[in-house]
C-alpha cells in the first residue's frame, strides 16, 4: 500500500460526500453512485495500466466494455434450441468461412512474391470467400432472427452462471485488443488512438446490427443477476426487521441491500485488481514498463522489444475494461447496445484517469469516484443553475424552455473544463505517480 495520509484524506472526503448523498438525497442514489463508481474505477484502472504504465492512448474503451457486456449475454442467457436448430450450424459455418477467407488471403500474401499475380490471387480469394460466406451465413442468420422475433430471434447463450461471464468478458476484450494492437502498435502513438476509436465504433455497430448474436437494438433484458433482486429480498424477515430499525420502507431497504451486495462483489474484484496492479507496478516488470514509457529510444537500444511489451500491456488493460463492462451489464441485467456512447464510455473514463492522477492506481480509483459523482450530480446542479438564470424570464418563453431543457448538457461542459484545468494546473492529478 502506498497511500499517504493526504490520499487517505481525499478518499475519506469522497466517502463523506457519498454518506451525505445517502442522508440528504436518498440511500438508493448513494448506492447507485457507489456501484457505478466502482465499475468506473475498474475501467479507469485498466486505462491507467495502458496510459500510466506504458503511455498508450486508448480511445476505444467503449468498444472493450461493450464486448465485455456481450460476454454476459453469451454466457448467462439460456440457449434457444429452436434458433440453434434453425440456423446455428449455418452461422458457425459462416463465421468459420469468413475467418478462413481472411487467413487464406494472408497466406497468399505471405507465400507469393510481390507481383500483379499476387494482387489478383488475393482478390480472387476474397471474392470467392465472400460469396461462400454470405451464401452460408445469410440464410442462417435470417432463419435465426425469424425464431420468435418479439422476444428471442437470437441464438441465446450458454446458460452458465452469470459470474463466469466476467472473466470471459475480459478474454473477449483481450482478443479484440490483441488484433487492434497487433496492427497499430509500433507506429506513431496517435495511430493507436485512431485505430481504437474505429474499433469501438465497429463493435457497437456489430452489437446493434447482428440481431442473431444479442438481439441488436432490441436489447437483451432480464439477464440473470449474481445478487438477489430487491423484489426477492422484500419478503425476507431480516430485511423487514432491518427496514423497521432504519425506519425506511421495505422496498427501499431491499434495493439498498441488493445494491450493497453488488458493491461487495465489485469491491472484492477491485481490491484484487489493485493488489495485482500495485504488485506489478513495483515489480521489475513494472519498473521496466515505466522505463520504456519514459524513454522508449533508450529502452529499444537496450534490446527491449518495446512493441511486444506495449501489446502485452494494451491487451491486459483492455481485458480489465472488458471485465468492468461485463460487471456493468450483469448489474443492469440488460445489454442495450444503443446506450453505448463514446463520450460516456470512453472520454469520461479518460477524464477520470487524468483527474485522478495518471500512473497511480489509487489515483485512477479516486478519479473514478470524483468524476462519476460529478457526472451524476452536475445534471441537477445544471438544472438548478438554469432555473436561476431563467427565473427572471417570462414563463413559457421559448428561450426559457430551451435553456431548461438543455441543462443536461452542462455536464459535458463541466467535464471538459475539469479535464482542461487539471491538464493545465495539476497535470499529475489528485494522487500523483510516485
Amino acid at each position, binding site marked *: 500500500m502506498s497511500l499517504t495520509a493526504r490520499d487517505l484524506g481525499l478518499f475519506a472526503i469522497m466517502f463523506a460526500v457519498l454518506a451525505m448523498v445517502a442522508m440528504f438525497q436518498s440511500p438508493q442514489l448513494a448506492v447507485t453512485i457507489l456501484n457505478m463508481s466502482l465499475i468506473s474505477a475498474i475501467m479507469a484502472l485498466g486505462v491507467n495500466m495502458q496510459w500510466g504504465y506504458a503511455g498508450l492512448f486508448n480511445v476505444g474503451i467503449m468498444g472493450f466494455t461493450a464486448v465485455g457486456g456481450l460476454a454476459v449475454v453469451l454466457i448467462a442467457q439460456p440457449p434457444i434450441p429452436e434458433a440453434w436448430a434453425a440456423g446455428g450450424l449455418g452461422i458457425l459455418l459462416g463465421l468459420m468461412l469468413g475467418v478462413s477467407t481472411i487467413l487464406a488471403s494472408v497466406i497468399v500474401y505471405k507465400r507469393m512474391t510481390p507481383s500483379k499475380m499476387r494482387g489478383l490471387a488475393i482478390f480472387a480469394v476474397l471474392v470467392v470467400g465472400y460469396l461462400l460466406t454470405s451464401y452460408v451465413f445469410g440464410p442462417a442468420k435470417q432463419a435465426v432472427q425469424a425464431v420468435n422475433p418479439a422476444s428471442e430471434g437470437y441464438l441465446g447463450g450458454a446458460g452458465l452462471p452469470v459470474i463466469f461471464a466476467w472473466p470471459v468478458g475480459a478474454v473477449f476484450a483481450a482478443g479484440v485488443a490483441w488484433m487492434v494492437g497487433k496492427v497499430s502498435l509500433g507506429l506513431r502513438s496517435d*495511430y493507436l488512438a485512431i485505430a481504437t476509436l474505429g474499433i469501438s465504433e465497429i463493435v457497437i455497430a456489430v452489437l446493434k446490427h447482428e440481431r442473431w448474436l444479442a438481439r441488436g437494438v432490441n436489447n437483451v433484458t432480464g439477464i440473470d443477476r449474481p445478487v438477489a433482486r430487491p423484489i426477492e429480498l422484500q419478503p425476507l424477515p431480516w430485511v423487514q426487521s432491518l427496514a423497521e430499525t432504519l425506519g425506511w420502507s421495505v422496498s427501499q431497504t431491499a434495493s439498498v441491500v441488493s445494491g450493497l451486495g453488488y458493491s461487495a462483489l465489485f469491491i472484492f474484484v477491485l481490491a484484487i485488481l489493485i493488489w495485482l496492479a500495485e504488485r506489478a507496478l513495483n515489480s521489475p516488470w513494472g519498473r521496466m514498463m515505466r522505463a520504456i514509457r519514459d524513454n522508449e529510444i533508450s529502452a529499444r537500444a537496450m534490446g527491449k522489444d518495446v512493441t511486444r511489451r506495449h501489446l502485452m500491456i494494451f491487451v491486459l488493460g483492455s481485458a480489465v475494461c472488458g471485465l468492468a463492462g461485463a460487471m456493468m451489464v450483469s448489474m443492469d441485467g440488460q445489454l442495450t447496445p444503443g446506450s453505448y456512447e463514446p463520450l460516456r464510455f470512453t472520454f469520461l473514463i479518460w477524464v477520470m484517469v487524468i483527474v485522478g492522477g495518471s500512473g497511480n492506481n489509487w489515483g485512477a480509483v479516486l478519479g473514478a469516484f470524483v468524476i462519476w459523482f460529478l457526472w451524476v450530480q452536475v445534471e441537477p446542479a445544471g438544472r438548478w443553475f438554469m432555473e436561476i438564470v431563467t427565473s427572471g424570464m417570462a414563463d413559457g418563453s421559448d428561450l426559457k424552455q430551451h435553456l431548461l431543457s438543455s441543462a443536461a448538457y452542462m455536464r459535458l461542459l463541466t467535464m*471538459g473544463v475539469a479535464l482542461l484545468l487539471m491538464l493545465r494546473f495539476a*497535470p499529475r492529478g489528485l494522487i500523483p505517480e510516485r
Partner: protein
Amino acid sequence: MEPLNALVSLSNFMLIPALAYGSQLALGALGITLIFSILRFAHFAHGDTMALGTAAVIGGTLFLQAQGITEPFGLPTALLAIPFGLLVMIAYLLTADKLVYKYFRKVKAKPLTLVMASLGVMFVTNGITRLFMGVGETRFEDGNRFLFTVREFRDFTGLAEGMALRSAQALTIITALVVMVALFWFLNRTRSGKSMRAYSDNEDLALLSGINPERVVMITWTITAILLVLAGTLYGLDKGFRPFNYFQLLLPMFAAAILGGLGSPIGAIVGAYVVAFAEMGITYAWRRVFTYLMPEGLEPNSMMQLLPVDYKFAVTFAILVIVLLFRPTGIFKGKVL
C-alpha cells in the same frame, strides 16, 4: 443490356452522393492534416468543432429567415450566414488556442498531452453545441432543393432510369473545388502560405529564418476554421444536422488524412475521396445497376450489397488497417516516425 441506364442509376445513388460526401470529408481532412503538420498533434475536437461551426451558421440562418432575408437566387439561406459562422469559429478556435494549446506549446509538452487537451476542448465544444442545438436533427436546407429532379431528367433524356442533382450536392462539389484550389494557391504562392510549409518542414530553421511561429499557428487555426465551417455547413445542408453525426465523422476524416499521408494536403483530398467511394461502394445495393448490365435472364436476385450500411465505419476502418499494415506513411508519404 442498357449501360446508359446503369450509369444513370449508379450516378444517382452512388457516384454523386459519394462525390459530395468525399468533398465534405476532404475539407475536414485538410483541416486535420494542417493542424497535424503545424501544431503536430491529432486534433480530436475536429468533428465537434465542425458541429459548433455549423450550429453558428444555423443560428445565423434562423436570424436571417426571421428578418425575411432568405434564399438568395434560390440558393440556401445558410450561404448568407456562412460569414457569420466563420467569424464565430475563427474567434472560437483562436480563443481555444490561447487558453489551452498555447501553454502546452510553450512548455513543449508531448504530442499526446496536446491530444488530451483537444479531448477537453472536444467535451466543451460538444457541450456548447448541445446547449444551443440539443441532440436531435435540425434541417436548415431551403431554396430550390433540386437543380433538376428525377422526372425532369427522365423527360429530358427519355431514359427509363432517372437522376436528380440536389443543390446541396452541387454546391458541395463546387465549393470544395474552389476551396481546394484557393488553399493550394495560398500554400504555394503566398508568403504566409510558404511560411506555413516551411514551419511544417523544419521548425527550427523556420525560426532562424525569422518566421514567427505564433503567426503561423494563428493562420493555421483561421484556415482550419474556414474549412470546418464550410465542411460542416455543406454536410448539414446535404444530410441534416445532428451533433453526434459530426463526432462520428472523426473516423473517416482521420482515415482519409492517414491514407493520404498525414501532413500532405493533396493526400488528404485523395484519401477523402477514396474513403467516400469505398464506403458508398461497399454499402451500395448494386442490384439495379446489374439488372441493366446483365443479359436478360441473368439478372441478380439479391440486393448485391456487400455490407449493410450500418457497417460503413467498418469499411473506413478496414482502409485504415490496410494503410497501417502496408504503408503507414500513406499514399503521399506524410510525416511519419
